[in-house]
């Protein structure tokens, strides 16, 4: 059910906010054991929130978010509720503050159902590196959800929340949305405050939305966007009104299709489905342009150097001194820090920390980090060129559909390469949305992405919504 429909039901009192929340909680109780999408379920506080929401509705104080039950990824801080980043390091960490996005949703009356599972510290594309066990795909529980916002995507796909907050550093909202057959929106860098989002790679991280549709994703973005004094990188350019254009004509939209995104390494089924979507837009009268992003071949390397370098620094604060996991081993502070980190972090996190520190070491800095930032500049320039001649760019979201759990675990490089279609968007700070455009022979969803100009979420939501209205999705059956 769309958020607008839920809104109507609540406002017409066809269902109470408490009944609605109870229904979601019951469903989580019944089915989440099969997919492990939640780390923490806030049953008690959710009911209280719902009661308050109902009072507001009854007193005519209800707004767009009053009583809407949502989930929040477990790297987004929630006051008084454990925020673990799916890591042993923060297994018992309870922040004394809300992330700005959470403050806004709560303030608007939304109900927080719980905290969703993810790759540890948002590092990964499978949601299998969680300390609390991997997330399973609602379409086929032997397959991965993608990641790192796998819990967010699965919770939406399985109907365990009305919409979900995720985070996207290199595709972490869009790729799991694609794998789980739902819609994932990564806003422009700076559109949503990062205050309270536990940092992975500060210059790339952005809170995003997983929802049932582009319109729903825009609906949630309307509630969380905006400049925040607490985040110096947040922007005043985000304007809101993200669903305003929905329903407008798209025939005047110029769509760029970059050839590099359809070259070697893409599954035939994915390629066919995405090109079919291109044909669909053509049939609506959109102008389709072949464009090029020549630096794509360097994007994965640049992304892993920049993100790992920032992560190595960002994760240094987890030293067992102030909060989080502390090892019982060791004689002095140096041992304490080493052992706490050795025992508190999982392997993928350690791999990124080592990679990042290596890239920043004097003697390697120029060759790695500095060069990566040059590629970043180049990619931005190439996107700017493309947007001279088109309004949105259409690409596949991932080269494959959801694979079997355990399939890629021992091949990190192969996993990193699978991020190729999503990372450039973060590198360039652009908004992008992923939606389902087909299903493969196993019935697994195929995702396509629409990339927009900075702060022009409205257009990609419009174009995406148009496609969704004419495309029949298959429900995940658990």
């Amino acid at each position, binding site marked *: 059910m769309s958020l607008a429909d839920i809104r109507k039901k609540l406002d017409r009192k066809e269902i109470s906010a408490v009944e609605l929340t109870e229904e979601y909680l019951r469903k989580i109780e019944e089915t989440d054991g099969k997919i492990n999408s939640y780390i923490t379920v806030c049953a008690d506080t959710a009911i209280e929130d719902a009661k308050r929401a109902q009072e507001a509705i009854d007193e005519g104080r209800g707004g767009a978010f009053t009583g809407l039950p949502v989930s929040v990824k477990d790297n*987004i*801080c929630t006051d008084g509720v454990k*925020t673990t*980043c799916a890591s042993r390091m*923060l297994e018992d*960490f309870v*922040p*004394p*503050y809300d*992330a700005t996005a959470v403050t806004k949703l709560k303030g608007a009356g939304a109900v927080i159902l719980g905290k969703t599972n993810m790759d540890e510290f948002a590092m990964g594309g499978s949601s299998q590196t969680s300390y609390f066990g991997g997330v399973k795909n609602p379409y086929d529980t032997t397959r991965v959800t993608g990641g790192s916002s796998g819990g967010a995507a699965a919770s939406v796909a399985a109907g365990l929340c009305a919409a979900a907050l995720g985070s996207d550093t290199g595709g972490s909202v869009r790729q799991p949305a694609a794998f789980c057959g739902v819609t994932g929106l990564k806003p422009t860098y700076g559109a949503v405050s*990062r*205050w*309270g*989002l*536990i*940092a992975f*790679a*500060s*210059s790339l991280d952005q809170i995003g939305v997983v929802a049932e549709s582009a319109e729903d994703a825009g609906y949630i973005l309307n509630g969380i966007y905006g400049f925040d*004094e*607490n*985040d*110096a*990188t947040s922007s005043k350019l985000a304007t809101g009104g993200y669903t305003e254009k929905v329903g407008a004509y798209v025939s005047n939209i110029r769509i760029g299709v970059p050839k590099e995104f359809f070259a070697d390494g893409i599954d035939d089924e994915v390629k066919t489905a995405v090109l079919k979507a291109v044909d669909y837009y053509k049939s609506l009268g959109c102008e389709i342009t072949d464009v090029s992003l020549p630096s794509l071949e360097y994007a994965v390397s640049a992304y892993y150097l920049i993100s790992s*370098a*920032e992560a*190595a*620094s960002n994760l*240094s*604060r*987890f*030293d067992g*001194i*102030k*909060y989080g996991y502390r090892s019982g081993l060791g004689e002095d*502070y*140096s041992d304490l*820090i080493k052992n706490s980190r050795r025992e508190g972090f999982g392997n993928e996190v350690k791999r990124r920390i080592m990679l990042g*520190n290596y890239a*920043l*070491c*004097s003697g390697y*800095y120029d060759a790695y*980090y500095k060069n990566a930032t040059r590629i970043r500049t180049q990619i931005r320039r190439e996107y700017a060129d493309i947007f001279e001649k088109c309004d949105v760019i259409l690409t596949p979201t991932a080269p494959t559909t959801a694979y079997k759990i355990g399939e890629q675990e021992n091949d990190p490089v192969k996993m990193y390469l699978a991020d190729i279609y999503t990372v450039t968007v973060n590198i360039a700070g652009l908004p992008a949305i992923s939606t389902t455009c087909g299903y493969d022979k196993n019935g697994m969803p195929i995702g396509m992405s629409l990339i927009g100009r900075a702060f022009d979420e409205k257009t990609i939501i419009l174009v995406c919504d148009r496609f969704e209205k004419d495309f029949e999705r298959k429900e995940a059956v658990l």
Partner: protein
Amino acid sequence: MRYVPVVGLEIHCELLTNSKVFCTCQNEFGGSENTRVCPRCSGMPGTLPLLNRGAVRLAAKAGYALGCTVHGYSAFDRKNYFYPDLPKAYQITQFDSPICTDGHVTVTGGKDIRINRIHIEEDAGKLVHDDYEGVSMADYNRCGVPLIEIVTEPDFRTVEEVQDFVEQVALRLKYAGVCDARMEQGSMRVDVNISIMPEGSDTFGTRAELKNLNSLKAIGRAIEYEIQRQSEILDAGGEVVQETRRYNDNHGDTKALRSKEEAHDYRYFPEPDIPPVRLTDGEMDEIRSEMPEMPQERFKRYTEVYKLPAEDAGLIIADKAFSDFYDAAVAINPDYKQISNLMLVELNRNLNEAETGMEDLKFTPEDLANTVKMASDGVISKNAAKEIVSIMFAEGGKPEDIAKKRGFIMSSDTSELDAAIDKVFAENVDSVESYKNGNEKVFGFLMGQVIRALGKGANPKLAKDALTEKLK
């Protein structure tokens, strides 16, 4: 062999902002442990730095005070290292693009010491070790206290140059309101990089970095010790090792802290949480317009325009509040020399005895200016002026009232004076005779008798003239 020392300085100064540099916690010295911390400065996950623009402005002022170029564009970087007093495990600092560069300060002997850069950074916390319990505790009150680091070129060749430079920098920063520059409290911390080279050579030797220098004296002693130590190594055919050494003020020596091999690789990279700092031309003009007159300019004014002796001028400018008081007083009564004298002798003596500062003064520059004017007009004596300063210091009050109340107003009534002289003459016939016979020494005695007879209202000048006349 004779060696020449080559010295460069790194000076950390705590900025006088109200709040810390990346959060809104109070910026204050001391206090109970961990009472001035928040999620930001204690590095809690999900928090982000919030740049205090006040710190940026003070850093720019430091630049102007030290003859630097202040940049409209500067940027923060992260310096990464693990230590329990550093909660984020990185220090936010300015590495690639500091806010100020290319300054200079002229020291004794007219030599220019070049300042390479001034950058903004955050301070770390403190560890408290309890050896008895065998535990260490972290106090994060100082975390995020705004600092500037002033880095000089290795331009110093003598201890005097170093000490003069440090003194001047401290004074200028105090004048500019940037830092209170209390070395003993750690609000200004000087690290010394020192190497030696044979006299006549221009190739620098291997340097040692000296830490824990909390007075000018300590800086001098540490440098002397290092010159000696490094000379002995070189004379014995050895090699100086690049290392950080800690100065021990009790022993007057330095001990190795860590070698170059143990030095950290700080893995600097641009701070992604803080956009580059911009200062517009307008803002820079505004900051410059807020700059007070610097001590070296005042010194010039005092010596060249007011014709004060260099030593007196130096003493006045050494304390900004003192100098401000002087300026306010001479603006009312341009008796530069007398006001300077009263302040440097009477006022300073009282300040020292009472162990108080200018901020506690009970009288105004106007009161002092009037006191001096009353003396120069012959209304009160010079000694009375001194006494009035002490009285105003102790009790406050207006000089005119004090003079009246205490009978300091000198009499201009000559009949009283004549009567007094007649009385003295009658009582000291022998002395008067003796004087008239050529013994001029007794004049002082007679004068003293006249003054005593007149009491506190005596006008010594008038009395002297009258006495001289009558003795003719």
